[in-house]
């Protein structure tokens, strides 16, 4: 893998991460926020794979499996909370989650 390709792949990862982060910060729908988090995780996955390839080591790809597992668990718990919230408050707006406001 050439250095140029490595660079491009990392730019792609960075772009995906930035989109995800912006989505988390700017979107108000909980489900979108969760999806953006998935996007950030997958951007990280991409970076792992790229570095794994560049170093010729498999450990990066092993990490990806861990991240996927965690992402799946996170999605399950997150969606469960979202459903409970929806039933409780009848809204999916993140900014409505302000019971702990001081």
């Amino acid at each position: 893998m050439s250095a140029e390709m490595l660079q491009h792949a990392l730019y792609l990862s960075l772009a995906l991460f930035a989109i995800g982060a912006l989505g988390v910060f700017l979107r108000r729908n909980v489900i979108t926020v969760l999806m953006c988090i998935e996007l950030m995780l997958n951007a990280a996955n991409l970076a792992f794979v790229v570095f794994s390839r560049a170093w010729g080591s498999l450990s990066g790809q092993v990490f990806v499996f861990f991240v996927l597992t965690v992402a799946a668990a996170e999605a399950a718990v997150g969606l469960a909370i979202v459903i409970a919230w929806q039933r409780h408050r009848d809204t999916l707006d993140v900014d409505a989650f302000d019971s702990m406001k001081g």
Partner: protein
Amino acid sequence: MAAGRTERWVNALVACVLTTVAVVGGGRVLLSLDREALIQVLGWMVLLLPLAGFAVLAFFGGWLKRDREELGAGVIACAAVTVAFGLAAWMTVKFATIEGELTGSVAQHGAYLKAQGVSAAARDEILTKVGRTLELTPYFPSGSAVSASVDWIRVGPLRVAFSLLIDRLSLLMMLVVTGVGALIHIYSLGYMAHDPERVRYFSYLNLFTFFMLLLVMSGSLPLLFVGWEGVGLCSYLLIGFWFKRPSAAAAGLKAFLVNRIGDAALIVGIILAFHVLGTVELVHLMDATRGVEHPGITEQVAGLAPETLGGFGPLTAIALLLFVGACGKSAQVPLHVWLPDAMEGPTPVSALIHAATMVTAGVYLVARLSPLFVKAPTALMTVAVVGLLTALLAGTVALVQTDIKRVLAYSTVSQLGFMFLACGVGFFGAAMFHLFTHAFFKALLFLGSGAVIHALGGEQDMRRMGGLWRRLPWTFWTFVAGAAAIAGLPLLSGYMSKEAILAGTLAAGHPWLTGWALVAAALTALYMTRLVCLTFFGLFRGSAEARDHVHEPPWVMRVPLILLAVGALGAGYVGVPRLVGPTLATPVASEAHAVWLTPLAIVLALAAIVATAYLYLEFVEVVPRLRARFAVVVRVLEAKWGFDLAFDWLVRRVVVGGSTALLWRRVDAGLIDAAVNGSAHLVDVLAERTRALQTGLVRQYALVLFGGTVVLLAYLVWR
């Protein structure tokens, strides 16, 4: 009805059988003991019998109350104390026998050594050693036995045994407490016959007897302190016995509070004694200061510099603190204010607690630790001066009191002053002598006044008495016996003991104190004659109703009066100073005995009696003129020298006022509350500021989290 009577007979029979079994069985066990063990067992029995009486009355009192005659409670209480007196007498006899044999054995040794031609100095040395050896069996030449002791308190170096100290001094006190106590118990059977709360009364009286015995028998200061507080408690309970009367409740409280002042000093004194001398056992304290060797204690005493008059060392501090405690209990100036008010209690209580026994506890304490007090001349001088001052002040106040019991109360304070004067000049034997005789005649006077009050249906004001001598011959003659004894008529008990005090004061080289003591003695004669004249002579000044009510007391009250009258007349012939001398510090007397002292004292007493009697019997109309002439003096005396006012001012202005203005408003509200509230306020302000951080916007939190991570990473990368 018939069933009830049968039941009562059966009960009485069962009680008789049980008593017989107990007496026969107990007697066999006691007689099988050897003499040393017998004395110890008897000591515990004397101590615990009144406690048992109290326990029975306290726990089974309700059952006794169902008996319609309600005689049971009183009889049990009387029996407990009377039997205790009998056992104490038995103990005394045994004690005297053993001591006589020991002395005889030492004398034999002496005679043998003399026959061997040993020099006098060497003989003394050997005999002292023999005495030491005898000490190993629990008796020693100064004549005391310590009961087998159980460890009571054991903290670090402090070891206090639960032990009884039985020597001549405590035996004397035991006999006085149980003897006079038994008579007063019996008198109470009649005096309290109509009171619905008799069970409570007798249980308190028995409890008091127990604590008083504990006080005089205890082998260590902490145990003595238990008795000391116990009698204070019983005094409080009995002064406030008729607690529905507000004045009685207040008087009880006053007595308790004033006593607290003294007791606080006493406990500090005990702690200091332990700190300085390393022991709180009475035998050790007496021996240590007397020069008998004890491992560990002698060194500490030897390390102390000898203290002189005007000097102030640790021993003086201990002695003074103990004396402040004695002042509280024994009503010495300025802590005497509670005793006259204590007359709110039933009259037999005034006789037992506030005249014959409890108030003499302070004198007992000083006499008990006399070897320590003579090592502290400054303290001893204080004792003498305070005692004399008390004798004079109380004697003058007694002159203007109108309540018969209050005259007697001030008289008690005055006589206690005499006892402390005797202690202060080093004649502790004379103090114990006066304590002994005073117990008889003052108990007699109080019981006599109780008979008068009883006869008049509760009247205590002498202005509404008079001419009672024809109507109450028994009361009158016994009362006069007591009055004559306390006034110092020659050859009666009060004369003998007061004479011993006056002679001692002079022999100790204090002519000025002797002079003022003579004045105080004359005052005694004055106020007692006034009391007798107002009560028994002249015309009856009470209501017609009261006059018809007058009756002699029943025999159960008369017999104690007669027995006490015999004691008041003859108690002076018991050579108390000689008897208790070996346990006390020996007085340092110059041989300056003045032949004029005794005649002068007699002449003064007689002159005071004759003058007062003449004034009150022949020239009663002069009395108001005299009062008008000396109006200022009368007012000062009626204000009791202003002690109550001073205390009132001290407590209300200084304590309450100072507490309000300074401690409450400044310290409590201004400092402590401000600090607490201020810290709470600080937290409040900080919280108000920081709560703004909690916006409740999840996305904002996420942004802060993200920003933080970026900053951290940036730092890690570019540091």
